[in-house]
């Protein structure tokens, strides 16, 4: 059983600059920030290190941080430009019973994060969901398709209505001839 600080120190020694920082201000578990293109290596270490043994990925959540500039496009829709999208990883060790949260932030225009699918299989659908709802692209994911929204959603929608959980999402008027708004 290790505390978040200890885990952070272990990771810092092992990976150096790939570990961006430790956020201790949250009311619950502290969050370790990681480079989005190093997350696979870090995760593999977290799982295989005998002192850590994070064998289970509880949750993987994509988040639109909405920290960019708000601009209006030609149609008058408010869009967010710049800023970041984040992915949070909540890890848990069944054998050692400790928990840790990781966070990666990637640019909103070209969101790319390494997939951890081959470390924790449970990441597969969570990553597909983050891709579906937020448009985060997971590198090396074996089967990155939409999961919840229809496969042909893109054909009926415009750029602002691709990924519904983005903060500047706007409903399309019609999908396959069915009116979407009330």
């Amino acid at each position, binding site marked *: 059983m290790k505390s978040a600080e200890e885990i952070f120190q272990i990771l810092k020694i092992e990976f150096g600059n790939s570990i961006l920082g430790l956020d201790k201000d949250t009311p619950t578990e502290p969050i370790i920030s990681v480079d989005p293109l190093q997350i696979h290596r870090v995760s593999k270490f977290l799982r295989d290190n005998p002192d850590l043994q994070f064998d289970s990925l509880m949750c993987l959540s994509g988040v639109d941080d909405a920290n960019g500039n708000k601009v209006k496009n030609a149609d008058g829709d408010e869009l967010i430009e710049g800023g970041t999208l984040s992915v949070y990883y909540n890890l848990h060790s069944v054998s050692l019973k400790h928990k840790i949260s990781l966070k990666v932030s990637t640019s909103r225009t070209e969101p790319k994060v390494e997939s951890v699918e081959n470390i924790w299989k449970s990441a597969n659908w969570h990553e597909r969901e983050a891709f579906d709802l937020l448009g985060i692209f997971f590198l090396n994911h074996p089967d990155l398709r939409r999961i919840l929204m*229809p496969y042909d959603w893109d054909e009926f929608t415009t750029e602002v209505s691709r990924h*519904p959980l983005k903060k500047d999402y706007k409903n399309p008027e019609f*999908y*396959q001839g069915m*009116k*979407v708004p*009330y």
Partner: protein
Amino acid sequence: MGLLDKEFSDGNIVIAKVDDLFNWARLSSVWQLGFGLACCAIEMMATSMSHYDFDRFGVIPRNTPRQADAIIISGTVTLKMALRIKRLYEQMPEPKYIISMGSCANCGGPYWEHGYHVLKGIDRVIPVDVYVPGCPPRPEALLEGLLKLQGKIRNESLRKKSA
């Protein structure tokens, strides 16, 4: 003689009687498509179970649309599902009836505003005979909906329909 006179004066006793028989048959054996969508499906199942017993009214679930008379849209219809429901409806042979069960199927329910993937009312895709309100409706409400549907069938006529 009074009763008989009245019926004869209608001039259509044969059709009227056949109508009555056919309507009676249709309304007392409404076989539903065994098909649940969301929360309401559990209440729909509960209606078929020992406590409420849909079978009293001759309602039994059939799993294939070809042998079903009524489809109970029990729950939220999403855009992805709406097309499938439409196809199921088209696969059912006439005469067919639709009960829209629960607020979601009626109008989108609690998901009416922000539900980007929820169809706001099944009547945007297929015609509905009876709406049952509630979230989810109690089994009694569904039974009431069935009785309403039966009332509707009772007033149908051979003459109006082109079979």
